[in-house]
């Protein structure tokens, strides 16, 4: 193993190249650009031997990945914000076509007004596309999750595309050390992609033609089954990776100091990392509080969160807003608890537009919630008069 001290994007590029996709098709967008530039550098140095298609839009990036994947090749792409939104149609297509495409999405604000900082509204609004969605909290986790995602996506009982989300700038442009395993370790861990079906002139098949209601109904059910299968497989793969590398970031969730907690904080991405410092401080002060960092938004860690709700009230910080209701993580949690748990749920919306959410703010949020001095949904840090 070697240590790579670099930004989230360059570490993601390293992981993607080590996974040896045969085709990468990508289009630049801030703050994803350094990731695709990283891959271009690996093309120039011949470390990346696949095809790198510099397409003319994100819609075409995903369309080209769909074509390459349907032809039986391992594929990778990366995007952010408006780029992800432009892909939306093809995200549905990739998932319905059951193509194991792996993509990094750097969580960035959606305009207008133009803002390149982080929040999660871009990927949250792709919730129903059928993609598996990871949210990472460190550059090491980005590397490890990219590798794990290829392994996951290409399993016969999964065959779903995987989106690895991480926060703009906080991770994408911040250097942190990451352990890089050997190429052989990565090769052995992922294995070779053996597609069940592909565009093959020796065995001509028509992909995606017209289908009636009964057949389509079954396609949707099969996708749901695959997401359920992923729920079981994600922790298994994470544990195997731990055996190989000693590193573990959690399965569907990462639990931190949840033992004996009567309040548990739920958050995703970088806020999830920042929350660990807040939990340490609060624990020091005697608050019985823990953290459950949600790593997979889809499949949603329903059973784990239900279990935690039997032990503790839940405090949720969403760096996204489903306008007209509340943060998306809050809605999901409340929906699974309905009728089955008496846990109180305190919902906070914070960090929209890239507003910083330091651990001190998280401590304030948790103190208010644990004291029960809070409304059902709180917009934390909203400043008047701006």
């Amino acid at each position, binding site marked *: 193993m070697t240590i790579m001290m670099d930004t989230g994007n360059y570490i993601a590029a390293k992981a993607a190249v080590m996974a040896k996709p*045969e*085709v990468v*098709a990508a289009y630049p967008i801030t703050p994803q650009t350094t990731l695709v530039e990283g891959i271009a550098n690996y093309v120039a140095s011949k470390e990346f031997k*696949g*095809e790198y*298609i*510099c*397409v*003319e*839009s994100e*819609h*075409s*990036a995903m*369309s*080209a*990945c*769909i*074509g*390459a*994947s*349907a*032809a*039986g*090749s391992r*594929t990778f792409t990366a995007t952010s914000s408006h780029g992800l939104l432009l892909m939306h*149609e*093809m995200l549905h*297509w990739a998932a319905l076509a059951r193509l194991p495409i792996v993509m990094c999405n750097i969580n960035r604000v959606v305009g207008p007004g133009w803002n390149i900082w982080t929040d999660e509204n871009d990927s949250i609004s792709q919730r129903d596309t059928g993609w598996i969605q990871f949210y990472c909290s460190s550059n090491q986790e980005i590397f490890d999750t990219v590798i794990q995602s290829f392994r996951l996506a290409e399993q016969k009982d999964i065959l779903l595309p995987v989106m690895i989300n991480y926060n703009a700038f906080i991770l994408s442009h911040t250097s942190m050390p990451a352990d890089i395993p050997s190429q052989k370790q990565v090769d052995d861990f992922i294995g070779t992609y053996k597609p069940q079906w592909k*565009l*093959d*002139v020796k*065995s*001509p*098949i*028509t*992909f*995606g*033609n*017209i*289908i*009636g209601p009964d*057949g389509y109904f079954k396609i949707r059910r099969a996708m749901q089954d695959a997401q359920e299968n992923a729920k079981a497989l994600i922790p298994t793969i994470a544990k195997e990776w731990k055996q190989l590398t000693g590193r573990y970031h959690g399965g569907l969730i990462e639990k931190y100091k949840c033992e004996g907690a009567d309040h548990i904080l739920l958050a995703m991405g970088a806020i999830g990392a920042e929350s660990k410092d807040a939990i340490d401080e609060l624990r020091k002060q005697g608050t019985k509080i823990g953290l459950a960092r949600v790593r997979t938004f889809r499949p949603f860690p329903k059973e784990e969160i239900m279990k935690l709700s039997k032990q503790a009230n839940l405090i949720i910080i969403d760096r996204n807003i489903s306008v007209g209701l509340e943060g998306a993580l809050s809605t999901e949690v409340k929906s699974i608890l309905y009728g089955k748990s008496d846990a109180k749920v305190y919902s906070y919306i914070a960090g929209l537009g890239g507003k910083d959410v330091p651990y001190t703010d998280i401590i304030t949020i948790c103190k208010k919630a644990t004291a029960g001095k809070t409304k059902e949904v709180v917009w934390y840090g909203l400043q008047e008069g701006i």
Partner: protein
Amino acid sequence: MAIKDLPTDECLLPGSAACPGCPATIALRLVLKALGRNTIIVIPACCTAVIESLYPYTSFDVPVMNIAFEAAAAGASGVEAALRQQGKKDTTVLAWAGDGGTYDIGIQALSGAIERQTNFIYICYNNQIYSNTGIQRSGATPYAAWTTTTVGGKTEFRKEMGEIIQAHHPPYAAQACISYPEDLYNKVKKAKGIRGPKYIEILAPCPPGWRFGMEKTVEMGALAVETGAWALYEYENEIMTFNGKSKLLLEQKIERKPIEEWIRYQGRFSHLFKPTKDVKRIKALDDHTEEVWKRYRACYL
């Protein structure tokens, strides 16, 4: 190559869901005869997505990937890149799209794929309308033609897609028509042997869309060429060559038939003849056609 000498192998199977008299199936059959079985087709939303018929059946005996409306060229780029990585360099990747998917919603992906020198053949079968969705105007719909979205007749002239393609300087581009099968076959065959992006557009007169009898498909294509509403040509290594009757028209060795000779058989232009003849609009269409040919002569003669 005479029709009797065309390959007998059929990659377009009988029993498709096409309308009677469908020009797309005429074209597909010929195109697949020229390309053979070592071909993968990428099809966006268009009539062919219906023609290929209902799961679990298919009308194609070659692999087909359906893709979203605007994505044919990009999807084909991905297929081509994957095949190259897999060492399958002799397989032809064909993107097969309608005029809506080419002139309008798919033009960005097409332009990008040609600019990237993607090694594929892009064929636009042009029936001058969104026919699959029920006859709406496209950028390829001619002036004055009725569609369900141009109820009194289209008020604009059609786009010159051929010239847009030529501005990309691909190694090969051509215009063909289902009424001239040998010409079409030869163009596709030639494209197959050239590396890089190849663009072929096939005029495809659509009986329900243009409102003519299903037995007149071939005739409508021939009249389009004879009236100059459509030109048969090849663009190869920057050189334009007009073919067949279009060559004779270019060189003025035959008289261009008035546009009226083509449109009077089509219900989509019937409002130009009933209840009274709309001389002004018929003349405008004919004048525009004449202008196009003047430009062709100035550029290519």
